[in-house]
């Protein structure tokens, strides 16, 4: 994974987020405070603005830089979480070996672990983790079992969508919706939605070859 492909993934993510503006914003308005889409968009634009600076960096440094940039750009709850994700992923990819699919799966998992630590949260709390944790597990599992990239991409899309859907009937115990009690039920979590959107965008790129 070089910076070219990182930039390609980043712009696919950005397009996907923008394409889902209405859904994402609406979800955070319903059981949050309505800024999640704007936060995501600001983050995506910051990464786009980083493209030149990333040139020539290895994946580890590039992802770390992205994490640092997000940390000082997004704010809110999602800012430190996504920042932690990318910084941990970067750290995990600090290797002299060529980056394999197993490396990537492990790095993704490290990123998700960092989110769990930073947010002191787990699955079942109606957050982005309900998408990210199962995706990380599926990813590691399938990479270990030697599945092809397209197979993995297709599976992760499915897992992400299921994870998103699973937030619908949860009570929230983390984030802003935690104050809502029963009223949160029936609504998807905004952060889970944007994670699902981003994972789909990346996997679609992989599937497109």
């Amino acid at each position: 994974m070089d910076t070219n492909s990182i930039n390609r993934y980043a712009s696919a993510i950005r397009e996907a987020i923008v394409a889902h503006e209405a859904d994402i914003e609406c979800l955070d308005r319903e059981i949050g405070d309505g800024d999640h889409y704007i936060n995501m968009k600001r983050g995506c634009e910051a990464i786009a603005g980083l493209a030149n600076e990333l040139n020539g960096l290895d994946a580890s440094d590039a992802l770390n830089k992205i994490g640092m940039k997000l940390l000082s750009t997004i704010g809110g709850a999602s800012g430190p979480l996504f920042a932690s994700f990318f910084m941990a992923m970067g750290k995990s990819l600090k290797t002299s070996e060529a980056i394999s699919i197993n490396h990537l799966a492990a790095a993704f998992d490290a990123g998700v672990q960092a989110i769990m630590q930073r947010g002191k949260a787990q699955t079942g709390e109606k957050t982005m983790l309900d998408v990210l944790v199962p995706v990380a597990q599926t990813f590691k599992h399938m990479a270990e079992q030697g599945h092809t990239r397209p197979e993995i991409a297709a599976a992760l899309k499915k897992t992400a969508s299921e994870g998103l859907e699973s937030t619908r009937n949860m009570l929230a115990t983390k984030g802003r919706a935690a104050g809502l009690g029963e009223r949160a039920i029936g609504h998807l979590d905004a952060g889970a939605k944007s994670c699902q959107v981003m994972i789909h965008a990346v996997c679609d790129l992989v599937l497109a070859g």
Partner: protein
Amino acid sequence: MKKFLNQVDQMLTESLAGFATAHRELVQVQFEPTFVSRKQKAQNKVVLISGGGSGHEPLHAGYVGKGMLDAACPGQVFTSPTPDQMLAAAEAVHTDKGVLFIVKNYAGDVMNFEMAAEMLPFEHATVLTSDDCAVVNSTYTSGRRGVAGTVIVEKCVGSLAESGADLAACKALGDKINLRTSSIGVALTSCTVPAAGRPTFDITEAEIEMGVGIHGEPGRRREAMRAADAIVTDMVAAIVHDIEAKQLPGAGDILLLVNGLGATPLMELYLIYHAAAEQLTAKGYQVTRSLVGNYTTAIDMAGASITVCLLDQEILKHWDSPVHTAGLRWGC
């Protein structure tokens, strides 16, 4: 959406620039990273730094000045600021007595301040405010929200810090006040986040949102609109229930803060105050200090919150001491 602005993404910058010019004898503003600090850097005292999403003005920038905060870090509207802002602010205002962060208890604020704290090269501590009793605290959730009671914490801890107290004492007073403070809000209308361009929630003429948060987060319940006295009765009951649950000794003298959420006229706030003061008095509380006005807002929401702080001699002394900020000023 109809607001006085030029471009949504310039709104905060222009507004902060105006704020800094209007109060230039008091504060200065830095951009990228953005923070507001006192014109005269304080010496030899614990410095207080707060911050949070914008849209709650005068909180927090309006409370920078003598007797209150040393710096404030404004985030985007309803979005907590980023750690680089806190770091830059701390760098600019710190003394060797340490840094106290005052943070409203929201996941975003907590995590961003936490990451700043982890990177901070100075002695530091954090007071988390969580006065909103609309959100029932439980082991299942991330806890109560910090709302208008934060102003009381910032005022009183600011006063203590000014007296030369050390970091531990400042944190202890902040924690004590937070424990002794309960708030609840009610919305008649939604706020409109400028970048979203439309109201955060829909609400009819016949409804109110009881327990609403200062970001337009839904509250406890959607309820029927009714007479102000009846609304206040339920708000006071929630606060008294919360106070009783804390089992604090010597509850008696209180500070009663009736806070407007942005679009509610003073005439209505004083009417709410009238009802709340009468009801609290009937329940045996002495309303010893009062504050009525827009102190912790939710952009342009029509609505109000009621905050009760159980006073003791220490809190009272620090509440009464001189303060000179854009948003709160007395005694000097």
